[in-house]
């Protein structure tokens, strides 16, 4: 399965690299585009020293941790939301008869290594924040755990978004509000949001476990919303809890798929 993924991704990567100048330009500009979010954070902190109780470096830590996971998923899984195009064009039928899982075919569809620049940019911000913050070294084991958790949560979200498109072929853009919206939501400490919104993204859609709950543990801080401290470690449970329904929704979507009818 992994070797198939690598083979397909490499095939698309070679296709993308055929136009070298364009490829290099896209890699650079994609990184710059992703960095605009950092620019916004820097402009905000040019006007204040603390945002909802969090300092400049703490916000950059939360941003970096979430964005490494988000950009990783955007590169390796994000293309599954192209499914509506394949359903409309009828090319999804061809994917179903090939001896490779359609999910892997879609995840590698139009795979572009230029997005690696965004992961590097997010990782650089995370590394800067970890170096700038005076953190307890015994708590740093949580950083890789939270990144893996975030990857699983975002990948599940994208899979759910793709499954929804079996019924929502007319307005595929609507799922962007959930996938890219989640990426935007997790860039800031959740203390900026209203209590009800935070409840929703903790208990209904477990986005709080991407960087907020584990991030509070790494930073050694209490939750301003007063959740008990054992919730800092529930990330992997929440990730599996979202991955399962995503997997079931995807299988259901595939089973009920009836082609375009022609």
């Amino acid at each position, binding site marked *: 399965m992994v070797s198939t993924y690598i083979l397909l991704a490499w095939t698309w990567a070679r296709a993308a690299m055929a*136009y070298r100048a*364009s490829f290099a*330009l*896209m890699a650079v*500009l*994609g990184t*710059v*585009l992703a960095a*605009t*979010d950092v*620019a*916004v954070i820097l*402009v*905000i902190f*040019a*006007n*204040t020293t*603390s*945002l*909802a109780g969090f300092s400049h470096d703490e916000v950059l830590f939360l941003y970096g941790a979430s964005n490494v996971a988000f950009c990783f998923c955007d590169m390796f899984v994000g293309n599954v939301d192209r499914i509506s195009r394949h359903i409309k064009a009828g090319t999804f039928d061809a994917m179903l008869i090939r001896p490779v899982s359609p999910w892997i075919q879609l995840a590698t569809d139009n795979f572009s290594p230029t997005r690696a620049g965004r992961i590097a940019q997010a990782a650089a911000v995370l590394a800067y924040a970890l170096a700038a913050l005076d953190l307890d070294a015994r708590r740093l084991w949580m950083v890789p755990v939270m990144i893996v958790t975030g990857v699983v949560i975002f990948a599940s979200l994208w899979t759910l978004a793709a499954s929804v498109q079996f019924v929502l072929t*007319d*307005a*595929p*853009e*609507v799922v*962007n*509000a959930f996938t*890219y*919206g989640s990426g*935007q*939501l997790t860039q*800031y400490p959740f*203390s*900026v*949001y*209203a209590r009800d*919104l935070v409840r929703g993204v903790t208990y209904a859609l477990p986005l709080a476990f991407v960087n907020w709950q584990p991030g509070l543990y790494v930073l050694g801080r209490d939750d301003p919303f007063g959740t008990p401290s054992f919730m800092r470690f529930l990330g992997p449970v929440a990730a599996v809890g979202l991955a399962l329904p995503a997997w079931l929704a995807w299988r259901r979507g595939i089973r009920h798929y009836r082609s375009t009818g022609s």
Partner: protein
Amino acid sequence: MSTRRSQGPPGPAAALNPLPAARPRAHNPALPSADPRAGPRTARHRAITLRRCETIPFHAPFHAPFHAPLYARLVRYGFRKHATYVWGALAGAFTNSVFGVLRAYVLIALWEARPGLAGYDVTHAVTYCFVTQAFIGPMQLFGGGLDVPERIRTGDIALDLVRPASLQLWSMAEDLGRAGYLFLVRGIPPVLLGAALFGVVRPSGFAGWAGFAACFLAGWAVGFAWRYLVALSVCWLVDDRGVQVGSLVLTTLLSGMMIPLPLVPGPLGELVRALPWAAMAQAPADVYLGTAPPLETLAFQASWAVALLALGALGTRAIRHKVVIQGG
């Protein structure tokens, strides 16, 4: 004589030529009309004859008189073309609204830390956030929206350039229709949601609304002029994705869509507030809030609109030569 040939009218030509007589396709009753609305004495027929009844001199695109009914019709067509994708537009409105809510919370946190920052209060900041999200659709802040790059790539641009109307004005009229439709479907919902969730301010009285309408139109004109220049660059670069992404970075960051531009400190802030991108979102949003004088703002936007549209006119002239040289 076979039955296949029996459709041709018998005549002296038929006797000499064994092939059936050629007929104009439009009058062949055997072929159904492609469109029931196309035909003599229908609106579409008049629309077509309208631009064909004038003779087309070689330099027509530069000397064609401004034909108001033609452009009014193009505005309507642009509106109708985008009205086809109503679900796509509503999905866009939904996404813009969700991002508006998320950005609003960040701005609220900032204004709670620094009340009165940049001359806004919290309600101003929230309104700014939803108004700029509402601009994304009509101002096309994420770029694109024009057919020109695709038509340059396919070579159809050669046809557009011999039309007795300027390519730039033609695209502009269609884009105005697009902006009008997206203003209604993608512009109004985010602001209504912001009003329902947080409360927003409104322009005061008729003068306030009129000033906003004028600045909104001026902002759209600057936005169109910029996107038109980006679109023309395809003619020289073939692959326009790089320029598109470059334009996306500049527009999202410098228009004030992501963060109010008064927050940018120092000389850098003064620079970004004077650039054309500020005319696309920051300027009309400030007039909406009543935090900027409408007439001065309008003058700022109009000068950028005129400058960029003039550049676009030069570019149109240049691609005309380039297309002719390429033999397209």
